[in-house]
Structures are given as structure tokens and as C-alpha cells.
């Protein structure tokens, strides 16, 4: 039986649909669809560029039963445009009392290998839901998300196996109106690979990219002084 509930995914990555946030959100959306939910994706960075875009985003959120914010962690928190959306959602909910209470879930990924780097950002999401009368449906944190390089998770089966299992468990719970189970969160937080290997791969990648763009010799430049 289809439950016809709507999940709105807010993809808060400047890379849009080609980032790891979209990969994670895409897999969760597919699993939620399998559980009978309708899913809609919105690119936050594009929407916040104009008032009209932001208004469209807020109207979509109004219709949702479940809101899923997927974002990369920047400077220990949510990217600026994601904060802007939360500020706007809070203002709207304060102004329009009739908006039904809805559930809010967050999927964070960070470039550092430890998923715990996402904790502060997820705490911000949790406080947001409490302060504007939404229901916290839990958060998932992935460390070393850069490795997935924005590819669909099904194309990185070995690396993303724990993330896929976590999202499948989360989808079942969310579709049933429950919060993300602890098991899903702990599976998602498992390292994608041993951290020394991750650091080595990251260093090789950045050196190679710098050399390719002719900046290999300037990689340690200090353009603004000491």
C-alpha cells in the first residue's frame, strides 16, 4: 500500500547533483520511493540566489511530510546557504502558524576521515528543529565523503556498502514515521577506508591536481603574507 507521503530533499552542496551529498540523498530517495513515499529534490545553492527561488523552496517544504537536508560540512558547520535556508524556514514557521509539524532529517558528510567532524553541524540541525517546532528524525554522518566523488552509491558498491546499508535501514524507519535508528547512524559513521590510506590518496590527488593546473610548485604559497 502506498502511503503517498512527500519527502523533500534539500541538497545543500555547491556541487549540486554531482556532489557526494546528492549521491547520499539520491540513494535514500530511491529507498524511500521503494517504501511508497514520493520524493522531490531541491538544490539549495541555486534557490538562495533569488527571493523567488527561496520562496519556491519554502513552498515545497510546506507541502512535505519529511524534510531531508543533505550537506557537506564546511568549517565545522553547515554551508552558509544551508544556514540561510534554515533561517528562512524558521521565520516562515513563526509567521505561518498553520504549517503542519513535519519531520526533519539531516545527512552530513565531511572531507576529513572522521565522521565525528559532522557532530556540530548535526547538533545545529537538531536545535533548529526544536526551536521551530519540527520533529527531529535523526542524523547520519559520513567521514571521508570526498572519496565517493559524487558518483551514485551503486557505482561504488565496495566503498559505499556501509553507507548503502545505513540508508536502507534509515529509509525503512523514516517511511514508517520513526526516527533514524542508531544502527543506521553507526553504520554510516564507519570509515570508508583506513585513515592512513585516505590521507595518502587525498595528498596524491591534490598534488596531482595542482601539477595539472600548473600550480604544483606554488602549492605552499602564502599570497597574503607571513
Amino acid at each position, binding site marked *: 500500500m502506498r502511503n503517498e507521503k512527500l519527502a523533500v530533499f534539500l541538497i545543500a552542496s*555547491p556541487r549540486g547533483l554531482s556532489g557526494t551529498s546528492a549521491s547520499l540523498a539520491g540513494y535514500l530517495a530511491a529507498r524511500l520511493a521503494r517504501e511508497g513515499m514520493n520524493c522531490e529534490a531541491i538544490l539549495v545553492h541555486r534557490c538562495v540566489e533569488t527571493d523567488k527561488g527561496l520562496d519556491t523552496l519554502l513552498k515545497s517544504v510546506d507541502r512535505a511530510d519529511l524534510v531531508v537536508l543533505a550537506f557537506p560540512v564546511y*568549517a565545522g558547520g553547515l554551508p552558509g546557504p544551508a544556514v540561510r535556508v534554515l533561517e528562512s524556514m524558521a521565520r516562515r514557521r513563526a509567521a505561518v502558524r498553520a504549517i503542519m509539524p513535519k519531520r526533519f532529517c539531516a545527512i552530513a558528510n565531511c572531507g576529513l576521515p572522521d565522521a565525528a567532524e559532522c557532530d556540530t553541524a548535526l547538533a545545529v540541525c537538531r536545535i533548529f528543529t526544536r526551536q521551530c517546532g519540527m520533529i527531529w528524525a535523526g542524523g547520519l554522518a559520513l567521514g571521508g565523503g570526498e572519496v565517493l566523488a559524487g558518483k551514485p552509491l551503486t557505482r561504488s558498491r565496495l566503498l559505499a556498502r556501509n553507507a548503502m546499508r545505513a540508508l536502507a535501514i534509515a529509509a525503512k524507519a523514516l517511511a514508517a514515521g520513526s526516527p533514524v535508528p542508531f544502527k543506521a547512524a553507526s553504520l554510516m559513521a564507519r570509515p570508508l577506508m583506513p585513515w592512513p590510506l585516505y590521507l595518502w590518496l587525498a595528498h596524491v590527488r591534490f598534488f596531482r591536481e595542482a601539477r595539472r593546473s600548473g600550480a604544483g610548485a606554488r602549492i605552499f604559497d*602564502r599570497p597574503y603574507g607571513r
Partner: protein
Amino acid sequence: MRAVVLDGAEEGDPVLRRVRGIVEAELRGLKWEVSAFSLHGMDVAPCRGCFSCWTATPGRCAVSDDAEIVLKAVVPSDLAVFLTPVTFGGYNALLKNAVDRMLPLLSPFFLRRDGVFLQRSRYARNPRLLGIGVLSAPDMESVRVFTTQVHQNAEKLDSPARAALVLSSRHGSDLLAENVRNALTRVEIAR
């Protein structure tokens, strides 16, 4: 000694304006040179997450806007002050955009210190960091999360001293000034 104040106040926020005035007055009283930036009136685009500041134009952002002015001021400073309304326990969008754009201060190389992963700092000396948040209603979880965020940012920026201060919008000027003075002591500026 130089200080940079990144003011995330929205237009017409009287409390943050008052706090900024107090911070500037205290620092000038200690003979510090202060550069303050009202982010509300500046053109600071969100970070594109392109890593050009690591791999194409090392140390510089590929996006040319007012964030470059902020970076140029932060690098040679001895103290950076983040000023923001506490927004769900974090920074507001204006300040967060500016902080996200500080990625060029870091190099693309990781290190692990005391079990914590960090990015190596690009510069040999970094400013101390004082994060000041103003709360409109008491909320202990917001205080805790804001404090954690400031300390994490300071650790990533390799700041030699750091402090987080959460003020109430209901505090009078005397109490605000006393709290700011105490925070400046914690970042080893005032005694």
C-alpha cells in the same frame, strides 16, 4: 597589534551593534588597530567547494569578491573576532559564508594531532580567535554547540588562543562590557 572584526549582524540589529562598539572600544583602549567588516553590506558569495584555492591558485580563492578583502585583513592580524547572533547554536548565514571562504588559509595537507584530523595551516602564524554570539533567549544547548564550533574553528585555523563568549540580548551595557573584557583576557589580550 591588529584585530579584525567580522560582524555578521543583519541590518539594524541594535544588540550586535552595541557589542561591536564595546569590542572595538576595548581593543582601541589597549592601543590595538581594529579593522571591522559589516558582512551585511559586503559581496561575499558562498564557497563553491572547488578546491581551486588549494590546487589552482594556492592560497587565493578563485571567486573574486569581498571575501578577498577579508582574507587579506585576517592573515596579518593578531586577533580575529567573529560576531554573530547565535543561530540554532551556530553562526548566522552571513558570518558562515565568510568563514567558509577562509579555506585558502589552510593547505590541502592533512595531519592527525591527538587523534583529531586537521588540515595543515598555510601560514606560520595565525590570529587568535574570539567568537562572540548573542542569544535572544536562554538555551544551554545553543551555548554548548556555539562554544564547540568556535573552539573547532580555532583548532582548524591553528589559533594560538581562543575563546567563545555567548551574551544575552537582555544584558545591559555594563555587563556586556565586563564579559567582553573577560573574554579578551581569555585570548591573552587584556590582563
